[in-house]
């Protein structure tokens, strides 16, 4: 009888690496995945670059920067590659800052909802019966509600919401989707021999959940979330567009709000087009990423051997 415990752990890690490599190979084959990833990298670069313009000259500050010579909306020029908005602020800096905000909102909301969804999904799946029923009914109710409108009514009650409050509320409405998947996984794991073994060895419920179930369930939830990120970005953009975003944050939705509300939408295409294109493209890229992920996760979706 070999000493299996340490072997087991390194075996597990080995399995992860092997699975990751296999997944990456499949992912690379998918055209959608490649395009999605490249677009995403482009946006990430934009987000990183957003720190540069204000360093070059304070007039490039997205929110407060003011060009001493311009105080209205102008088209693209050498000084302002995309032009300026109605207050003379540089549009390109705003666009880059918007990328930063989009990632921040998307990633934070995704993380929060993964965290919540995983915790609730595992609990529901593992505890079963009443706890499970209650939690899943709650999830059902939340899934029915239109997130945007709920945030609106909350804004009516609690006044202007700041960006983190918005992110939190979005996460509160996204966890049901995650929890369903995690619950299904937990249910299938619940009756596996290694769980039974842990129970017999006297492990508490909490320990079982966190030590044994979670490691098997977490990678799935992370992967699953990659394309759920988009809805958070869209909701934030829609809120900002309607005028209920965080007034201190420059997001793409906010830019659209400005071009719309200041009546420039018909005469400033250089202002109207870029933010909308960006929101749409980032949504598209995450969607593509998600589809490629699906192929990695679900072998049935991979291209079968067609006739040569």
């Amino acid at each position: 009888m070999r000493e299996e415990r340490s072997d087991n752990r390194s075996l597990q890690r080995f399995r992860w690496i092997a699975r990751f490599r296999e997944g990456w190979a499949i992912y690379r084959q998918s055209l959608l995945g490649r395009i999605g990833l490249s677009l995403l990298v482009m946006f990430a670069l934009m987000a990183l670059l957003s720190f540069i313009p204000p360093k070059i000259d304070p007039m490039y500050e997205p929110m407060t920067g003011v060009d001493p010579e311009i105080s209205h909306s102008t088209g693209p020029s050498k000084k302002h590659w995309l032009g300026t908005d109605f207050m003379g602020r540089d549009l390109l800096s705003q666009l880059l800052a918007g990328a930063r905000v989009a990632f921040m909102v998307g990633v934070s909301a995704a993380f929060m909802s993964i965290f919540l969804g995983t915790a609730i999904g595992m609990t529901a799946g593992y505890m079963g019966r009443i706890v499970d029923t209650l939690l899943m009914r709650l999830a059902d109710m939340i899934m029915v509600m239109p997130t945007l409108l709920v945030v609106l009514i909350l804004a009516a009650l609690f006044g202007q919401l700041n960006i983190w409050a918005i992110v939190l509320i979005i996460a509160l409405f996204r966890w049901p989707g995650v929890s369903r998947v995690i619950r299904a996984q937990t249910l299938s794991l619940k009756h596996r021999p290694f769980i039974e073994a842990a129970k017999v060895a006297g492990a508490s419920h909490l320990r079982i959940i966190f030590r044994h179930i979670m490691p098997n369930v977490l990678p799935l939830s992370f992967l699953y979330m990659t394309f759920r990120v988009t809805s958070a970005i869209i909701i934030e953009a829609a809120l900002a567009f309607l005028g209920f975003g965080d007034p201190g944050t420059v997001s793409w939705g906010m830019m659209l709000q400005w071009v719309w509300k200041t009546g420039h939408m018909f005469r400033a295409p250089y202002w109207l087009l870029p933010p909308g294109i960006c929101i749409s493209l980032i949504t598209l890229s995450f969607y593509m990423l998600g589809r490629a992920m699906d192929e990695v996760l679900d072998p049935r979706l991979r291209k079968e051997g067609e006739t040569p």
Partner: protein
Amino acid sequence: MELWRYISRRLVQIVIIFFVILTVLFLLFRLAPGDPVERMVDPTMTREDVQRLIAQLGLDQPVWIQYVYYLKNFCTGNFGYSFHYGQPVVDIIWNRLPNTIILFTTSIILAALVGVFLGKIASWHKGTKTDAFMTIGALITHTVFLPWLALILIWVFAFKMGWFPINGMISEEIWLDPDAGMWAKLLDVIHHMVLPLTTLFLIHFGSYLLIMRSSMLETLKEDYIITGRAKGLTEKVIRNHHAAPNAALPVVTSVGLSLAFSINGGALTETVFTWPGIGRELVFSVSQNDYPLAQASFLLIAIVVLLSNLVVDILYAYLDPRIRY
């Protein structure tokens, strides 16, 4: 019959969910910062009116009695007075409801029908240019940012081309004209509806197309398709008569699942096009701090969403005999 039992069970569920929503909203109303009375009652009204309204809404009573008043008022349709319009809220939202329903249901139905039809065709031409064109088209229209799409459509077709009005639901000249007949008025509404309808349609039909396409590809692998071929049926009959009805079912499910998303889109569309529906009213009232109107609009939208879910479920039960019998 099975179907009736199914419907009544779902209705009970809806009532329970709505009850929970009502209660949560009430609690938030009490917990939010600021004076709840000032939130519900316009202080600029006359003293007597203010007192009367407070009594009606039970705002001077302890919390639990207030809750009872709240429920009672909801059932009798007393939602208070709108700050902005100075009218009973119920009149306003009742007036707006049909406008939203027209726009919303027409766009969803159209998107579903076209999406299913094109998705079926795309699956049949899988791998060809037609399929790629449709799939990419669906992908792009589905991921475009809705308000932005709306703005673009207005800019190009209303502003630049002048084919359609920029906003609103009706042209006052036509509706105020005593000589204008029913047809003229109807056409006027349709004329105004084209752009908002197109916006909603474009956003939705893409996802239905993609789902139908993959659903068809899955369905064509089923055993009963082999039976169909063995029976000597033409591919056309197999595709349309055997595969499509089965493949369309997930699309119906998808319509139901994405109703919340669709309502969001509906509200945004109404706002950009100034279409006088409840969605727009909600947005508008929140920006005006008109809480009574905002609350009522929200609740009405919640009812619309829940009932739409029920309608979709019933439709699914009707289409899938395994549920009906």
